[in-house]
């Protein structure tokens, strides 16, 4: 069989391969004795998954119609389907690409931070987590999403527990409790929906919710279902005030795991929430009448400020970035919240169905941009940790002199985080502000401005520490990070700039997805 016919035969099955390949890779990795072999398996699998995701997204963008993959060839409401549309294709690629880019970095970092015996397990869990995240995004079935959510979460708990410090164990335990509560709340919400509609398929639920809403008695149940599912998923994506598991989990996990989780795990949960709000509830309920957008906006803004504030006072660089992640999730959710609100008629001349919604575009673009920037920042810290074994401010003081390339990449990504023009972060903020102006909430524009000033302070503070303080004893001895770490780091740092100048890859796709999502509502 030639390569061509093989590819043709495989192509219809790409959606399922996206799950099977990492699952199988995880299985292989568990049987490996050597960390390096397991790493190699993960590298191959991650790259493969990224290629598949890229191919899927390209197919969607060129055809414009969603890819539906029927598992066991059962038709939609009865069997489980995988559905790749503009939104899920976009998020799939973001997650897979982040996972693949950081794999070269992982080998040395993991070899240094995790005991020899446990290294294959790390890679196995990592691939399991990847499989779970891909599953959440690709599946078209609400309960299936729960299962994948739990797969990725269980793997995540282990990843965190593999951290060096004993507090990693406690962080993992706390995340386990919280994550399980979140998943259970989600499954309760889904259960109520199932009782109401008799189906678990996202599209099917959406089409059957209308009659349920018309009946005042059942309407209450719909509201409760929305509430439970919303809070459950919000917990997984660390929406304020349900973010409290996150700082410790990110701080004490192994460096690569932190970078991976910060870039991808919350993003999959965000995807799930968008799916629920817009595909499942959005079509039949006019979301504006529900409190969810207001709750989202208020909580997002609270996160943008309070978490940023904590980041300012933090003296542990990883923890600082963790708080910043909470704030950045706030930006994304603010965009999503704004997308729920009606766009002022005066500001748009074309019909809403054909103009992309700026708020949603901002949220989706920031999913990609934040994943890239945060992954770069955490990888830079990972390289520092690899060299000096600490990321406390007092230990990384002056490290810019001994590890200039690493810290330069850190600085670029930091600029992105602040939303400096010319970087990816600016693009997100631009659309977010446009989204706020579209809905007439001018005050939100100023809140965005104010909170980006706080991010300026915490990034400014660490920049000053890293470049202008007298080097600490450890920092003075440090050497520049090895090439295998610098290359992924700089790929991400340069992407931060590239995506700030050429927005075709992010904004156009996100706008397309936003059009499909929000346009369907109005």
């Amino acid at each position: 069989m030639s390569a061509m016919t093989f590819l043709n035969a495989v192509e219809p099955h790409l959606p399922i391969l996206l799950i099977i390949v990492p699952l199988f890779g995880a299985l292989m990795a568990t049987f490996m004795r050597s960390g390096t072999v397991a790493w190699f398996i993960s590298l191959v699998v991650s790259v493969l998954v990224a290629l598949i995701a890229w191919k899927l997204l390209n197919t969607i963008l060129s055809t414009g119609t969603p890819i539906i993959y029927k598992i066991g060839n059962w038709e939609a409401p009865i069997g489980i389907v995988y559905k790749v549309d503009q939104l899920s294709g976009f998020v799939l690629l973001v997650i897979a690409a982040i996972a693949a880019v950081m794999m070269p970095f992982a080998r040395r970092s993991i070899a240094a931070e995790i005991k020899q015996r446990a290294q294959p397990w790390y890679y196995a869990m990592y691939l399991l987590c990847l499989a779970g995240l891909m599953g959440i995004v690709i599946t078209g079935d609400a309960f299936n999403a729960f299962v994948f959510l739990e797969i990725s979460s269980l793997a995540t708990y282990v990843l965190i527990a593999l951290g060096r410090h004993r507090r990693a164990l406690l962080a993992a335990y706390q995340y386990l409790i919280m994550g399980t509560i979140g998943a259970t709340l989600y499954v309760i919400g889904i259960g109520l929906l199932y009782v109401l509609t008799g189906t678990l398929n996202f599209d099917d639920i959406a089409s059957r919710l209308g009659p349920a809403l018309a009946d005042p008695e059942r309407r209450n149940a719909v509201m409760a279902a929305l509430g439970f599912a919303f809070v459950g998923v919000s917990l997984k994506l660390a929406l304020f005030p349900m973010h409290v598991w996150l700082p410790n989990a990110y701080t004490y996990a192994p460096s690569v795991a932190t970078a991976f989780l910060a870039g991808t795990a919350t993003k999959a949960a965000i995807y799930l929430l968008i799916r629920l709000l817009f595909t499942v509830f959005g079509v039949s309920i006019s979301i504006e009448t529900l409190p969810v957008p207001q709750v989202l906006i208020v909580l997002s803004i609270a996160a943008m400020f309070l978490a940023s504030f904590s980041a300012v006072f933090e003296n542990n660089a990883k923890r600082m970035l963790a708080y910043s992640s909470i704030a950045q999730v706030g930006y994304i959710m603010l965009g999503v919240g704004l997308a729920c609100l009606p766009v002022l008629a005066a500001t748009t001349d074309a019909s809403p169905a054909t103009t992309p919604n700026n708020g949603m575009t901002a949220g989706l673009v920031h999913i990609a941009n934040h994943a890239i920037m945060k992954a770069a920042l955490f990888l830079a810290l990972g390289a520092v940790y690899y060299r000096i074994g600490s990321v406390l401010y007092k230990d990384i003081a002056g490290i810019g002199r001994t590890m200039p390339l690493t810290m330069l990449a850190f600085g670029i990504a930091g600029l992105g985080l602040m939303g400096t023009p010319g970087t990816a972060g600016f693009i997100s903020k631009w659309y977010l502000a446009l989204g706020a102006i579209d809905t007439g909430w001018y005050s939100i524009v100023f809140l965005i401005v104010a909170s980006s000033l706080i991010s300026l302070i915490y990034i400014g503070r660490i920049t000053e520490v890293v470049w202008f303080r007298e080097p600490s004893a450890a920092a003075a001895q440090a050497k520049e990070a090895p090439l295998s770490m610098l290359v992924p780091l700089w790929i991400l740092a340069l992407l931060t700039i590239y995506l700030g100048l050429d927005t075709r890859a992010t904004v156009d796709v996100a706008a397309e997805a936003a059009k499909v999502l929000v346009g369907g509502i109005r």
Partner: protein
Amino acid sequence: MTNELNPGLIVILGALLVPFLPGRVLRGAFMLMIPIAAFAYLRTLPMGDFGQMELMGLQLQTLRIDKLSTVFGTIFLIATLLGVIYALHLGDWVQHTAGLIYAGSAIGAVFAGDFVTLFFFWELTAISSVFLIWASGTANALSAGLRYLVIQVGSGVILLAGVLMHYRATGTLTFGAMSTETLPGTLILIAFGIKCAFPLLHNWLANAYPAATVTGTVILSVFTTKLAVYTLARGYAGTEILIPIGVTMALFTVIYALLENDLRRVLAYSLIGQLGLMVAGIGIGSDLAINGAVAHAACGILYFALLFMAIGAVLHRTGTAHASKLGGLAKSMPLTATFAVIGALAAAAVPFFAGFISKALILSAAMKAGHFWAWAGLLAAGAAVVIHTAIKVPYFAFFAKAQGEPGTEAPANMLLAMGLTAALCIGLGVYPEALYSMLPREVKYQPYTTEHIITQLQLVCFAALAFVLALRFGLFPATTRATLLDSDWFYRVPGRHLAMIANRFRSFTWEVVADGIVKGASKTYHALYHHHGPDGLFGRTWPTGMMAFWTTVTLGAVVILSYL
């Protein structure tokens, strides 16, 4: 495409190469080449709009060459060259790179044809310049730098908000004349005003400039504020409100400049005063006034750079710039003293020095437009400049009784930079046509009439007489080491209390919930712990429970809100 590159980008790209060059000589030679190359390139550009680019579906004009942008670009490039020479002795590539990026972004902003490009460079000036402050490495520099950064970037984001609304309202991003009638116009004016150190928005300047490194201050003094003058001249020429703002700037800074002890701070306040003159000129808005504002910006760049260079050399050699610790340096640093005096004469607008030929334009414009009070105020401020800048600064540094150690003459590169700048100060004073021919508006003006020379000399000499007499009769306020309250009090003192309250609040939610995981949590945590007692529900809730509790609360809130 090669024809459409913003000259600012040449400087920035050059700056990015600086860290990779080995050896001080090679690096220095390269840095000198950067502004020269950019200038040569600028000379080849014809007038017009270039560099069309599309970003996020927006049409940008990244390059606009007209008379206004050319005159600012030229003077900025000259100042860049002088600044590079002045800093040649430094081995610190971070400062060199940051300084050049800063200069390049200011130049880029001047040539920006649309608001998005302007905003890009606007923010870049803020972010790159803060390194010049941080590089001095003191604790004061850190906090002053952070305040500076927040205010500068704050100006940028206000600009962005204004631009977004302007874009929504008009559908265009071209940076042209704006109106203050609309909200976006007002926002953009505020953003420009912050960088231009409008009253109450000014103290980032007085705080940051004296905190920066010796060479950093020289560079800082050139770009940020003059960039703001440029944007005002382009966007808000003839906006009446600028006249009282400018006069206020010119007058209130006199008090601070008279009282300050740190000579770099004196110069910083004096700089704001001179900005007031330019702002008022822009507010008047006649062709003569705009020309005057632009010319004064160009001359001000030169003589303030010269004064900052001289005081910087003193600081470099003696370790202090405080009037109360200096004096008598004319003997040990004769060349520096000479250059400082030339800078002082230019600042005092003595005929045949740079300040004279530009200030006269603005005052004549005020007069012709009939703004009597503005004219009188600017005239008074001009007289006071003689005292607080032209006499006080060189006097206390070089001629007063020595209070500290004598220094040694400044390094050769500093002397060269000062010498060139001094030559330009005199050159423009003697041959004003060189500058006048570049000015944006077509107006003939002759500064050297007997009347102008005599009246200006009267003003200067009687001001000097007032100083001498005041000093002699003990009326001149003593210069002591002290903090002068300024409008930054409003954010530094109440701000600190606010920060403490906010910190408390953070403790309240965070420490209990998240940081509470960490034992040794704040007092608040303990207070709460004791308050609720070990047997109460809250007493027994440890962080995991607290997390679950908050989740439950949120769940309840969302569900209840759904039913409302």
